[in-house]
């Protein structure tokens, strides 16, 4: 709901919780833009999913019910699914590589118009969120170690196909039931970034955190085109400047806290398994990834990796 009695008010939403880098960016954004516009622009920031799931929140942005979003990558999956490879496991190896690709013209020339057609604009660079690794009750170093293991995954076909190809046995469990499912042995393993391990205290129910590094996970800030186009030039400049600042700070913050979170997991009795043969995992998943590029994704895997 832009434009209340005086000045501009921004409705900013996130499905994520406090302690994640996208929410960190959102808080910084609110503070700074309110300060630097001398209160002319105010921000109403609701995080923790008050507006529903991420997909739902993006649809709400398309419908004009919210102005900004800070969080994950569902907008790409919804409106440019052929480019969603960047958020599939065993495709890209580092955040830097992912950044390079997503900032390239080859990537943006198709993706940005597709998002803007839905009234969604990407605001600022990617925000790092952490590497996804593997949790289990036995150490995992090679693909042999995960054969047949009941692994909780988000219900996403590209994720399931890749892990299936590695040899794990994917099983759907919703995130809010993950702790109990692991504790009771409904599933034996999960995967996620250190922040997820910490926020759910998974060290109480899993013994090992094996650094498979199968997906550099990142997020993004978004703004509704309708809202952005309604700002005058000087406000747009201020907006751009602050968004660029806070996203970069959030990335730095995420890198620092990733280290701390790993130490926290270790302090709580989780053994961090370092000598993982990451390459073997990527190789084992390669047939599934190749198939995804043949059937679903735009361009070829090689092309993107060589950008």
């Amino acid at each position: 709901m832009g434009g209340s009695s005086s000045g501009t008010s921004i409705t900013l939403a996130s499905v994520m919780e406090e302690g994640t880098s996208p929410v960190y960016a959102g808080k910084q954004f609110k503070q700074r833009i309110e300060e630097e516009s001398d209160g002319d622009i105010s921000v109403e920031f609701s995080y923790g999913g008050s507006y529903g799931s991420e997909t739902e929140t993006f649809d709400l942005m398309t419908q004009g019910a919210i102005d900004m979003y800070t969080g994950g990558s569902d907008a790409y999956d919804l409106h440019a699914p052929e480019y969603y490879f960047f958020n599939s496991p065993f495709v890209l190896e580092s955040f830097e590589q992912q950044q390079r690709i997503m900032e390239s013209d080859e990537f943006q020339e198709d993706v940005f118009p597709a998002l803007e057609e839905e009234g969604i604009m990407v605001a600022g660079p990617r925000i790092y969120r952490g590497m996804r690794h593997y949790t289990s009750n036995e150490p995992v170093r090679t693909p042999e170690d995960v054969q047949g293991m009941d692994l909780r995954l988000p219900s996403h076909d590209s994720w399931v196909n890749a892990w299936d190809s590695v040899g794990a046995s994917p099983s759907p469990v919703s995130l809010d039931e993950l702790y109990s499912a692991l504790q009771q042995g409904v599933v034996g393993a999960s995967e996620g970034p250190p922040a997820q391990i910490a926020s759910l205290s998974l060290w109480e129910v899993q013994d090992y955190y094996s650094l498979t590094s199968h997906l550099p996970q990142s997020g993004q800030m978004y703004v509704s085109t309708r809202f952005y186009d309604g700002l005058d030039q000087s406000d747009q400049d201020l907006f751009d400047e602050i968004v660029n600042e806070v996203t970069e700070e959030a990335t730095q913050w995420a890198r620092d806290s990733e280290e701390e979170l790993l130490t926290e997991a270790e302090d709580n009795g989780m053994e961090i398994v370092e000598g993982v043969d990451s390459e073997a995992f990527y190789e084992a998943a390669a047939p599934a990834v190749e198939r995804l590029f043949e059937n679903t994704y735009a361009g070829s895997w090689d092309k993107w990796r060589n950008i």
Partner: protein
Amino acid sequence: MELVLIGLIFLGGLLVLYALGMPVAVAIGSACILIMLSPFGPPLNYGLMSNQLMHGLNSFTLLAVPFYLMLGRLMNRTDMTTEVFDFASAIFGRVRGGIAQVNIGASVIFSGMSGLAVADAAGLGRVEYNAMRDQGYDKKTAIGVTGASSIIGPIIPPSVPIILYGVLAEESIGALFLAGIVPGLLLAGVLSIFTYLVVRWKGYGKGEAVGLRTIGREFVNALPALLIPVFIVGGILSGMFTATEAGAVAVVYAIALGFYQGSLTGEILLEEFQEGMVETFSILFIISLAMLYGLVALQLRIPILLADAITGFTTDPTIAILIFVPLFMLIGTFMSITATIMIMVPILMPIIGTLGIDPIHFGIVMILSLMTGVVTPPLGSVLFVLEKVTDASLETVMRAMVLFYIPLLIVILIVALVPEVSVYVPNNYFF
């Protein structure tokens, strides 16, 4: 002031539409549209409406609703309900005011299978009432004990209101289930003591003691039914399945048993599925529109204003809970529990977070307080069921309940003031 005005329009519109006798779901949706059309609200947005039609229901955990609802229907259809009552009579029949204690005991056992107070009243209520009347108890005592004990059902797991709360508050349903066990048993205990006193005061005597052999026989008869809570709670705790899946397994078990014992046929089963389907989906239809209502509330900044108002008044979680209890008891008297949970939880969750109240504790207090509504005029659904299954008039039923608010209130206060009563079990066996 702003909050009062907006709140009045927001809630008032809904209540007027309720009063017209519109379906609850339609009344909620229409209230949203009225607000969007009014000068106070956000503009009319069809995209917002369609959004909630899909996203409001996009949750695996919601599947627990159809499963536990079906389970209750099948238990009634296969006479498992009666077997549970006979078993309870064999055990509790010997003590003073025995049959009254049987009434409570049967509800405790049945609560491990059923998730709705109405299911308890409709299933066990008839047997319990007649058994008490046969032994010379007056109508009021018989109805009071039957009505008050029916509330145990949705507190002890499984529980449909708890499932709805868990879905909307995004809390683990397994943990909430465990949190309900002690408060449910506490309610049974307090009710039992209170009933004992009433029975003494009114001068009713002992029931007849039955031999161990009879107890054994009734136990064997009831065993198939008694296995259901073992399945559900045991299955969840041992890790065979999640709470939602446990419901599905229990339904399949009840069906298999029904066919084995001959109380189910293909034709009956189809009818049960058709009717269970209608009951389930009419609840879920309310949920999807209640989600829209919550979203419009968010656009009107109601949760933020409400949180400011409450946190401006007190930041003490205990005092805040003591404000919520009478509020819920009041709301529970004129709105259905499911509708209240669906409308209020999305609005309240951000406030609970701000106040630092444990959402698991809050959920149990909320459901317990709302439950008093089902035995309170004018809308208490259990009252209507009791009127249907007994020979008492609605007026007698209502007056019969008054005395039994005392034990209910005692239990609500204990659970509200001592969080450990609810959160101890999940904290130590779950998290």
